[in-house]
């Protein structure tokens, strides 16, 4: 269980001038029992055109393994500075990662998509494990990941 409060305005491009309004959003990611070591998870947002907009959280402390989060790595060119200050421990099989962030209002209902890339040692890399559009309507609706994520929700 991980509960943090981070202000994205400090670190990423997700706040632009005029997007001063923000609200706390809780992201809950529960992994299934895939029978491996702790998973690295990258949570990040792309805009309506599919372009990388910014990172929300990185679960996993050793940057040498970030290349296995292939989509995130591709989008950021592996720039570990993108997750400075928003990095935590990797998440064990069957465990839940819960983070609370202040997200700009403008991210919702504007075509932005939240992605999770996952990677586990000696197991299949899973880019785009979860891809869920950020909408006020979709809040609280659980989404299933492709391989490792049993359930993902964002609550406002």
């Amino acid at each position, binding site marked *: 269980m991980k509960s943090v409060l981070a202000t994205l305005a400090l670190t990423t491009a997700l706040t632009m001038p005029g997007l001063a309004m923000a609200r706390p959003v809780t992201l809950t990611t529960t992994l299934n029992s895939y*029978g*491996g070591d702790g998973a690295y998870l990258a949570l990040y947002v792309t805009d309506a055109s599919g372009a990388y907009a910014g990172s929300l959280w990185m679960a996993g402390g050793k940057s*040498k393994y970030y290349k296995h989060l292939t989509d995130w790595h*591709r989008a950021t060119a592996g720039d570990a500075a993108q997750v400075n200050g928003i990095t935590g421990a990797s998440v064990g099989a069957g465990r839940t990662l819960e983070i609370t962030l202040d997200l700009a209002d403008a991210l919702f209902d504007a075509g932005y998509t939240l992605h999770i890339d996952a990677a586990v040692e000696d197991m*299949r*890399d899973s*880019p*785009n494990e979860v891809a869920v559009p950020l909408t006020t309507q979709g809040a609280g609706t659980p989404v299933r990941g*492709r391989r490792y994520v049993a359930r993902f929700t964002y609550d406002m």
Partner: protein
Amino acid sequence: MIRAIHRWPGLLALALVTVLSLSGAALSVFPAADRLTAQQVEAGLNMATLATRIQIAYPGVEQIRRAASGQITAYWFDQGAPGAAVIDPATGLGVASADPNPVEHWLTNLHRSLFLGDGGRIAMAAGAAAMVFVSLTGAALVARRTGGWRRWFAPLRGPLSHRLHVEIARIAVAGLLLSSITGLWMTASTFGLLPEADSTPAFPADVSGQTNVDLFDMPTLVSTSVTDLRDLSFPYPGDASDVFTLTTDRGTGHIDQGTGALLTWADLNGLERVSETIYMLHTGQGAAALGLALGLMVLGVPVIGGTGVLIWLAGRRGRPRIRGNQRAAQADTILLVASEGGSTWGFAATLHAALTQAGQKVHTAPMSAFAPGSYAHAARIIVLAATYGNGDAPASAKGFLDRLKALDGETLAPLAVLGFGDRSFPAYCAFAETIAATAEAQGWRALLPLDTIDRQSPQDFARWGRTLGQALGIDLDLVYHPIRPTAETLTLVSRRDYGAEVQAPTAILRFALPRASLWHRLTGAGFARFNAGDLIGILPEGSPLPRLYSLASARRDGFVEIVVKKHPGGLCSGQLNALKPGDTMSAFLRRNPGFQPGRGHAPLILIGAGTGIGPLAGFVRANARQRPIHLFFGMRHPDSDFFYSDELPTWQREGRLAQLVTAVSRGARPNYVQEALRGDAAEVARLILDGARVMVCGGRDMAAGVADALTEILAPTGLTPAVLKAEGRYVEDVY
């Protein structure tokens, strides 16, 4: 010093290193098993063919991986559900589950982190570092023990635990070093302490935007052999901007999914190759045979550790505990002990306790630990020195005289030397005398004149204690209780009697081998290990002082044999000569490493008279390798005291004895053994020039006569008995 820095990290890290090695050995099996079960790849199969086969079987294929073992695994999505299987490359169909082996996974986590995450990783890395350190110091000790790096595999002697410890270690040490150093590298890499070696090319900026080109239209895939594959990732279905990513033994590249063109490529860089080689060396993945060999080597670690603990324990039991031993730098009294059999340590413990009670700060150490530089507060230095053999330094005084001679006028606290010996020996307290003389020559001030203790006499010791007390201005009352060695009971099996006719009743006494406990066998203590030439201490009824006899048999012979002449009025020899089969005596074993024939095939010249034949006969009996042995044996009369007269012809026939020369001192032409030597002077000189080793056993007069005779015999060659002694080629066991 090396021994101490070898011992403590070894003992401390033992548990950790045992877990590391056992889990590592178990893990070493998996790459070999994978290798055996991996599906064979047909010669020349290229990636385009294999990928097409798999794509037909699993249209949603996302990734194809080839492990170092050759096992090929495919991952795919089928109607939103992920799937994976080990693939038969001939068909592209799955043949086995791709799930990681849970046992291997469990072992891997135990091996690298004790299931404790990063903290566990650091602990295990500390274990590996200890392994490196203990391996290096241990290797230095082995080299020192065998006499140099070139003699690394020289045969060993000693208690079973010592031999096991070194035998296993000197084979396993290469594997242990390789495994622990590569393991440390991998931990350092995990923690990002090494330069990053990632040569993955940047994702291509421009792609064609088209999709669905045939895999055979990708020249890179067609030209890549399956055996070079590491990983092939397919583009996302429906993402035209994505590409194929191919990783091979040589590097990584991106392939356009619309044109089949190779968009980017980067070769593995040097650092990556080093990293991969280290990974392969450590895990055995890609080098299964090496992995198994390393696994076997590290299996030796628990045995090495266990025997190491035994060696340490046995060493601690060998001497009495010194209570309240101060550090050298703080002590005002430095007590240095040179002891061969260990009895002098008993005196040291008594002196230490008495001085401590009188308010002194005492540091007691073996003489080999003499370190004048560290005696910052010493007001006096007291040396208790036993003598080994003919005035030589005991093993625990190794290097002392050299360091003393190297002092070069340094001022040291005043010195008191106390010698321990037996007045019936010619070299009575000779080592103590050498120390006192050398110290005087070096200008080292004496606290007390040299004094001696005869045959462990508590009275002598108490008297010396009073003198020391006067010099220090304290009341010093030294009450020494002799420590009786733990004796075992020997039962007489048979006896052969000689010499009654020449007024020298003598018996060859054969005792049954006492049962050796497992502990004794492992540590080589007591009668668990002995050779002819070692000594047996017999404790007679009515005297606390043991009498030493030379053994005429080895453990291997299955009995304990001594030759005992009855001395008129002799307490011990009288009791021994009165023994009947079935009677018992208390006895203990004392090693005599200085009087052993040693290994090698150089000729042996054995010279003995009377009961001195005992150990020499034992050497001949043990000479199954037919080393040329020339035995010169002096007796009174062949009809009366020709000991071993039954066996000697047999041994000669079997090649155990090359030549027997007897000298008879009573009869028509009286002749002593030294005369027999002179009679054979040319041959004796030739043998010695050929590297022969001379061993003399018997009475003091006989030994002196032999030395004179050899001096004459060797005069033309320029050699002397003294030179031979210095080379260790002339040894005596004299009584």
